[in-house]
Every structure is written in structure tokens, then in C-alpha cells.
């Protein structure tokens, strides 16, 4: 088996000298992922510069197995979505080739600005084709764009108009909008060819298209050797751009996009205004990235830290004086604040609540899934919830009503699983403000999960901090995020190496990323079932 791997790698290396490795690899497609909005935006900014504006509608994504990243391996482009991509591509191409940018972005000067110049067009399209497709264009692909530009130049009498339309074509091509991952046989499994490796690494760590150096490393075959890989991974990790990569990951893992459709009842909670949701999201991202990368902290502390960052909006909810000149200030909650890590931040508390009332069930279900990778099944269709809502009777607090309801055996199995987490957070209302009573009754904040009893948000934070399922869940989600697999289908063995590195490092995020990227499982996939052999009916083994 080892010999086969070496042969496959040798074949790739040999191929890379004469013809592009990508073309020679003739690999099987083992993954096909639609670019996310942020990946698209970051790619365009990196390739053409930040002053090229990207304006338009992106197709919504959906959450699968706890991550929207997974849906990129399932979703396609709808007619409405393509219409938007097509317009955006043209708007980008117009900017890149306009008077203002052409000197910088078009590296050659045409013989005449009014006539086709195949040599200059060819230089332009091979340069940007490589960056947009994340691999070199084949000769045929390059020729097609040069021909298109020539036709357009002739029709318009302007060389740059020809470039514009050729570039617009590249930016709406499926080769840009989808990351096609190719695998080559390596023993019993398939392993990604170098350009697909470059993309997987770059999107995982920087949330953007691979840079020139990474693409060069793919071209030379460096990404097929352990040493070469290690070098590139270390470079990516050492870069400050790891911040944006991890913001993207944590934004997905912590489900912060939920804010896109959370509305709070202004009549009951007038404090909640338009600035709240983006501020709460930003607070959590700052806290998380700061702990993970700037402090190089123990990721378990995300559940217990009282350190955070607040702006004026968040200060209002936390009832803290905001006496800072800049927009955000680091802040540490006092010991008796009841706050403990991200689980007691406004984001988590408000996203998983009703418009005007907290919901222990919503909070419990969400946190179990996000931090422990334990999804709760949907309730049976025919359930009578009315007892939970009757505050006129003897059951005054949500806890009393919820417990009454959870004594029904069919309900109990799930509610004893998810509710305790939520009940311990009942000291916070639907927008995350602290409270001590509900309908005049003091709130009982005790909870028992898996035989462990604790109290309030701080108790919950400590419980999660100490549960080894939490860091294991983070490793599982990072693996799923990087590969596009569904976290619920991922085998524990696939991220075992990465998890061990994580544990051994004292739960440092960089160690987890490095361990993951360097483990063979990150690039290996099961052999795809040939579509032709099964009349196109069989799904890819990978999906």
C-alpha cells in the first residue's frame, strides 16, 4: 500500500514539471463546494484588491449537522442566485479593467488600445485564471477566454472591454463559484491532489483563496511532502490572517448567523434596538478569537472566562458604565456578575429565546448541539405544551411549568437531556439581562446533568469546561468545517490525531488547527463510487 502511495505521489510530481499537475492528475471529483459569501468576498479582495466593491445578493446557506459550511457541499446555484452572480461578476470585471485600476491590475499594455492583442490577453487571463480557479487554466480554457476577449474587442473596438467580458466569464464560471476537489488513489483511499490541498488549507485557515505562494507550493509538489506541508501550514498559522479564518469558523460553529432572523419584541424589551444583534455577535467573536489566538489560551476557558469586549450597546444590556473613547473596550465582569464565558453572553442568551420570553428548551437544545455535539431529536408531532404556558395557575416560573411538562415519559427522555442547561441560565432574560425573580418568584438556578449537579451560569460554564466532550466537539466541528462533511457523520477516528494534539497542547487552538491540517485524514477521502459504473444514480461515497 505504501508503495502505491509513493507511486501516486511520484506520478504527480513527475507530471507537475511538464504539464500542470492539475490537468495531469485526472483525479476523481471527491468534493464540490459552493463558495460562501465571505469566501467569495475575501477571494475577490485578495485577488484584485480591497477597493474593488462587491455588491449583490448571495444565496442563503442552510445549517446541516451544526454547520453552514456543510451545506456548501450540498447546495447548488439557483436561477435567481446565478443572475446575481452574473451581475456581480460583470461589475467586478468593469472595475478591474477601468481607467482607475488597469495600470495596476493589467500587467501588460496592448499594442493598440482599440484592437485585440492575444499575447497581452493571454497574460492577463493566465494570471487571474490561476488565482480565481485556484489552479492553472488548461490550454483549451485559456484559449477560450482569449478568443472571447478578441471577439468582444472587435465588437466594441476596445481592448479593455474585451478583457472585461473575458474576466466576467471567469468570475461567474463554475470553476470559480465551486471548489472542485480532486482525489487521486492512494492505497485504499483517495487523497487530494496538490491544488485541492492548497484550497482546503487556505479556506480553513484564512477563509479565502490560496495565495501565490501556496499555489506555487502546489505546483512544485511541495504540498505532497510532509516537510513541505508542514512549512506551508506553519506559515498560514503564523499569519495574522488566521484571525479572519477563525472568525469565520467560530461564527459558524457558534451559529452566530442565527441573528439574521432573530427579532425581539420592542414593546416588552425597548432596550433591544437595531445595533444589538451585530454588537452581540461581535462581542462573542472578539472574546473567542482573543482567547484562541491573541492570548493563546486554553479553549476550555471559553466556558468560564469573565473577560470580554463591550461596546455602548452591550454595556447597556450588561448594565455597565461605558467610559471608553474607542468603539470597543476590553472588560472583565466582576465575580458576582453571574457571567461565565460565552454561554452567558448576550449572543447565546438572546439567539436562543423567544421574542419576549426566555426559553430554557431552546437554549438547552442549542448549547448541547453547539458545544457537546449532542443534537436533540425533534419532539413528537402530537404534544400538548399548554401546561407550560399557564401562568395563572400555581406554576409561576418557567422551571415549574417545564418540569411539570417533562414528567410525561415521552417528553422526559429529551427534556431531561436538554433542559437542565437552559434552566441554569434562567437568571438571564430573553435579551441577556440578569434577573433574580420571575413573576415575583425567586428563580431556582440548579441543574443536574449526567449525575452532576450545579447552579447558575457559572456552574454551567464550569460543567462544560470540565466535560471532555466539549473540546472533542470543537475538534469534530473543525474537521467537518474544513472538509465539508456533516459533523454528525464524521467518524471519531478522522480527527483523533488532531484531538490528541489539542489535548497535549493544553487545548490551544493553533495546536488543534495544525494537528488537523497535518493529519493524513484531512486530505484523505474514501474512494468515490464511479458515477458511470452506477448510471449516475449512486451518491458519492463522501457525501
Amino acid at each position, binding site marked *: 500500500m505504501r508503495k502505491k502511495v509513493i507511486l501516486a505521489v511520484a506520478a504527480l510530481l513527475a507530471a507537475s514539471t511538464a504539464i500542470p499537475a492539475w490537468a495531469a492528475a485526472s*483525479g*476523481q*471529483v471527491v468534493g*464540490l463546494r459552493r463558495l460562501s459569501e465571505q469566501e467569495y468576498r475575501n477571494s475577490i479582495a485578495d485577488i484584485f484588491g480591497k477597493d474593488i466593491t462587491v455588491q449583490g*445578493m448571495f*444565496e*442563503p446557506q*442552510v445549517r446541516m449537522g451544526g454547520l453552514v459550511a456543510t451545506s456548501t457541499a*450540498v*447546495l*447548488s*446555484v*439557483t*436561477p*435567481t*442566485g*446565478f*443572475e446575481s452572480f*452574473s451581475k456581480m461578476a*460583470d461589475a467586478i470585471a468593469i472595475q478591474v479593467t477601468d481607467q482607475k485600476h488597469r495600470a495596476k491590475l493589467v500587467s501588460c499594455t496592448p499594442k493598440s488600445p482599440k484592437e485585440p492583442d492575444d499575447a497581452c490577453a493571454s497574460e492577463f487571463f493566465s494570471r487571474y485564471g490561476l488565482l480565481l480557479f485556484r489552479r492553472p487554466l488548461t490550454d*483549451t*480554457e485559456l484559449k477560450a*477566454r482569449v478568443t*472571447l476577449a478578441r*471577439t*468582444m474587442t472587435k*465588437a466594441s473596438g476596445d481592448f479593455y*472591454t474585451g478583457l472585461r*467580458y473575458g474576466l466576467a*466569464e471567469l468570475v*461567474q464560471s*463554475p*470553476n470559480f463559484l*465551486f471548489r472542485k476537489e480532486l482525489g487521486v488513489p492512494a492505497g485504499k483511499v483517495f487523497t487530494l491532489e496538490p491544488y485541492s490541498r492548497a484550497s482546503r488549507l487556505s479556506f480553513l485557515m484564512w477563509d479565502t483563496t490560496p495565495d501565490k505562494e501556496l499555489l506555487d507550493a502546489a505546483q512544485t509538489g511541495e504540498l505532497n511532502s510532509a516537510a513541505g506541508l508542514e512549512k506551508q501550514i506553519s506559515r498560514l498559522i503564523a499569519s495574522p490572517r488566521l484571525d479572519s479564518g477563525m472568525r469565520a469558523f467560530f461564527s459558524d460553529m457558534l451559529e452566530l448567523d442565527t441573528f*439574521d*432572523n432573530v*427579532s425581539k*419584541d*420592542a414593546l*416588552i424589551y425597548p432596550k433591544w434596538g437595531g445595533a444589538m444583534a451585530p454588537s452581540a455577535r461581535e462581542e462573542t467573536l472578539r472574546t473567542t478569537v482573543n482567547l484562541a489566538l491573541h492570548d493563546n489560551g486554553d479553549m476550555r476557558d471559553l466556558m468560564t472566562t469573565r473577560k470580554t469586549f463591550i461596546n455602548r450597546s452591550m454595556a447597556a444590556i450588561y448594565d455597565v458604565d461605558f467610559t471608553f473613547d474607542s468603539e470597543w473596550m476590553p472588560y472583565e465582569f466582576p465575580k458576582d456578575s453571574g457571567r461565565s464565558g460565552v454561554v452567558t453572553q448576550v449572543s447565546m442568551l438572546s439567539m436562543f429565546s*423567544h*421574542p*419576549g*420570553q426566555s426559553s430554557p428548551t431552546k437554549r438547552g437544545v442549542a448549547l448541547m448541539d453547539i458545544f457537546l455535539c449532542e443534537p436533540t431529536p425533534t419532539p413528537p*408531532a402530537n*404534544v*400538548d*405544551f*399548554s*401546561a407550560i404556558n*399557564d401562568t395563572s395557575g400555581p406554576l409561576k416560573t418557567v422551571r415549574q411549568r417545564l418540569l411539570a411538562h417533562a414528567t410525561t415519559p415521552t417528553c422526559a427522555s429529551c427534556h431531561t437531556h436538554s433542559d437542565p442547561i437552559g434552566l441554569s441560565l434562567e437568571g438571564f432574560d*430573553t435579551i441577556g439581562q440578569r434577573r433574580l425573580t420571575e413573576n415575583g418568584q425567586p428563580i431556582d438556578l440548579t441543574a443536574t446533568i449526567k449525575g452532576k449537579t450545579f447552579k447558575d451560569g457559572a456552574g454551567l460554564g464550569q460543567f462544560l469546561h470540565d466535560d471532555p466532550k466539549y473540546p472533542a466537539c470543537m475538534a469534530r466541528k473543525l474537521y467537518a468545517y474544513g472538509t465539508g462533511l456533516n459533523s454528525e457523520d464524521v467518524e471519531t477516528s478522522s480527527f483523533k490525531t488532531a484531538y490528541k494534539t489539542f489535548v497535549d497542547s493544553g487545548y490551544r487552538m493553533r495546536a488543534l488547527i495544525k494537528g488537523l491540517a497535518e493529519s493524513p485524514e484531512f486530505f484523505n477521502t474514501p474512494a468515490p*463510487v464511479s*458515477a458511470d459504473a*452506477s448510471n*449516475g*444514480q449512486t*451518491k*458519492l461515497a463522501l*457525501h
Partner: protein
Amino acid sequence: MTLHRRTLLRGLFQGSAAVMGVPFLDCFLDSKGQALAATGQRLPTRFSTFFYGLGLTTQLWVPKKTGLDYDTTSQLQPLEPFKKKMNVFSGMRVMVDDNPNFQHWSGNAAIVTGIAPTKASQFDSKTIDQTIADVISRGSRFKTVAAAASGDPKHCYSSLGGANTLPAEPTPLALYTRLFGPGFQDPSKADWKPDPQVMLQQSVLSAVADERKDFMKNLGGTDKDRMDQYFTSVREAEVQIAAELQRPEVVAKVAIPASPGDMVVNYALPNVRQVTPLMAKLGALAMATDQTRVFNLAISEPGSNIYVPGDPLGYHITTHMEAIDQTLGYQPRVAKYNVYSMELLAATLKELDSIPEGDGTLLDHSLVMAYSDQSYAKIHAVDGIPIMLAGNANGRMKTGYHIAGGGAPVSRVGLTVQKIMGLGVDGWGKGSMETKSAYPELLA
């Protein structure tokens, strides 16, 4: 050429004096008074869907009498002005067979595909609006257009199949811009001529389409389906561009209103009430000017999160948590929310009905299908989901009926819709919902 009838629509769009002429010249009528377009073709029949979450309360909405002249129930009261222009269906069954009843999904998915979904949040086939658009949308600029009145582009139950849904325009401004922003060509302009740039765009799109063969190589089954959708989308963009090169068939005398500007679009009922008619109006204008012939409007998702300010729970949670009033025998707060849905449907129909066209109104030349995800939301029941078909479909649908389904598969409604829209279909649906029986009494 003079306009015999002229309607002015004023003040709708942030106080700007929007003026719109009748989108059809009455001089083009055939001997029966049927509307004709400038080319002598009949006015196209348009198709719309109106999605509302969480159904209605059976004992408050189902009329006792069936057929014509049925009794108007309290929950159908808001639709009274349109009673003669619509049909209501009670007692239609969603048969899930061996599939789970996915809460807030199986019902609406079955209504628009005739198939019980095998996965939550996915469609097992193309949805009915897309099937209809394949046939009726030729020549119009957009094959279909969708809008979401509580602001989430995901609230659209229109799909080429699978997990993708066509994104809806989430604000009136976005909807306006898509329809009447760049690329819109006023068909009534005297100096109408095709934009030469559009022709160049066409070459770009055909270059993208040419990538198909290479890109599809070595793809597995699922990925092949996904890329089929992508290239279908490219093809539709090509058709759209081709349509922009033609002078629109319907000669509409239209002054397009000013942009509606930014507004808050979310689940709060007062906002939904403001946004729904505005979106309906824009959709109606789009159909009147042949920008599209298929318009999908959703006021919320299934399991609607719409809330009345002051109600801490909102619509969805209320359906599950509110006790049944022992005297009344139903959930009173839920019943109120139900009625809001019908009011929003009525507001939507009103917009279509207020655009005169040829021998009637835009509504008369449309078929509007209103549907929901549940019948009795408290227990996620899907049998008896209330469905309404409004509009006369250019004389192709008889109206004024209450059809009591008596447990007939819900796909019979979808089949009837397709026959009315002129699709050559004999049967529709799968499994227990496979049917060859339309409702003949509705076919004119």
C-alpha cells in the same frame, strides 16, 4: 392611440406621486372582449403563490356548505370581497406513506410537489411554480420572482429540487431594484431599442454554458444534479437576456413608481402588514409589465415566527403552548393569528385586483394559490391544510366553490392548477398522492 381607461396609483411609495397608466390598451380586445396583447396574442395567464404559516382553525374556517354559495365562515371573512373570484379547499390529505411527517415541512412540500418529502427542508422534485414557469414564462424577463414579507430570503418554497430554494427578495427595496432597477426596459417607451451591451453579455453566458461538458466530467450522481441546476440557471440567464433584446409583448402604459426606500422588515406584525401589500403591489406591477409571469410571496416561514408586539411567545410557540379554551373549543389567540394571515392574503389579492387589464383585472388573468404547512398546528397535523385558488386564470378557472376534499390527496389541487395553467399533464404526485383526477367542476 388613446387610453380608454386609466388608473392612477398614488402615494403608495413613500409619498411620491407615483403614477401608473393602465398596463393594457383596451383597444386590443377580441370579439369576445378577451384581452389581447399588442401582437394579437391573448394576455398571458400569470401564476402566483401566497404562503402563510401554521394554517387556520378548522372549526372556524371550514364552511358547512360545499359547492357554490357556501357559507362565509369567520376566518374566511377577510376574503369575502373575493369570494366570487376564488375557490377554497378543505379536507385535502397529505399522505406521507413511509416517510416521516417532518414538522412544518411535509405539508407545504407535498402541496407544491405532490410528493411527501424524504428529507426535512428538501424538495423531492421541482416545485409547481417552476413547472408552470417552464411552460408559461417564455419571453418574460424573469422566469420567476419571489419575495419574503418578514425579511428572510430563505422564506421561499420554490425550487428546482433538493435543498436549494430560490432566494426571495427580503425587502420591498430589493424587490423593486430587481424588477425596476438596472436592466428594466420600459416597454412603453417610444424609442425602445435593444441595448447593444446586452448582446455582449449573451456571448459571456454562452461561454459559461460551454464549460458544461468539461465541468461535468467525473462528477458523482448528487454533484451531477447540483451542476445540472447550475447550468439550468445559466440557461435561464441566457433566456432572460434574450427577452431583454425583444420588445416586451404586453404593451403597458406604465410609469414605474419611485423606489420604496429602506424599511424595517421583520416578524413584527405591524411591519408585515406594511410590507406584504407593498411587495404584492410590486409583484403585480411586474406581472402587468411582463417582467415575470410567476410571482411567489411568503409572509413567513412554515412555523411562522410572526408576533404581535407584546406577545412574548409569537405565533408558532403560541400554537403549541396556548391551551384550548374549554368553552370555545379552540385556541383563541391562535385563532386571531390565523385571521391575520387571511387579512394579508386579502390585501395581496386586492393589489392584483386593482390593476385593470383588458376586460378585467390582473387578478382575473392570474391564478393565485394560497397554502400553508399545517392544518392544526398545535399537533403538526397535515390533513386538511387550507388551500385557496384565486383569480379566474383568463377564463380557464370557474370560481366561487368550496371543495370539500373528504380525504382526497392534496395533489389533486396541484394537478387542477396545472391543467388550468394549460400544462399538458395527465397525472401528478407520487405514492399514495399520485393522482389523475383534477377537479373537473373548476375547469372552464
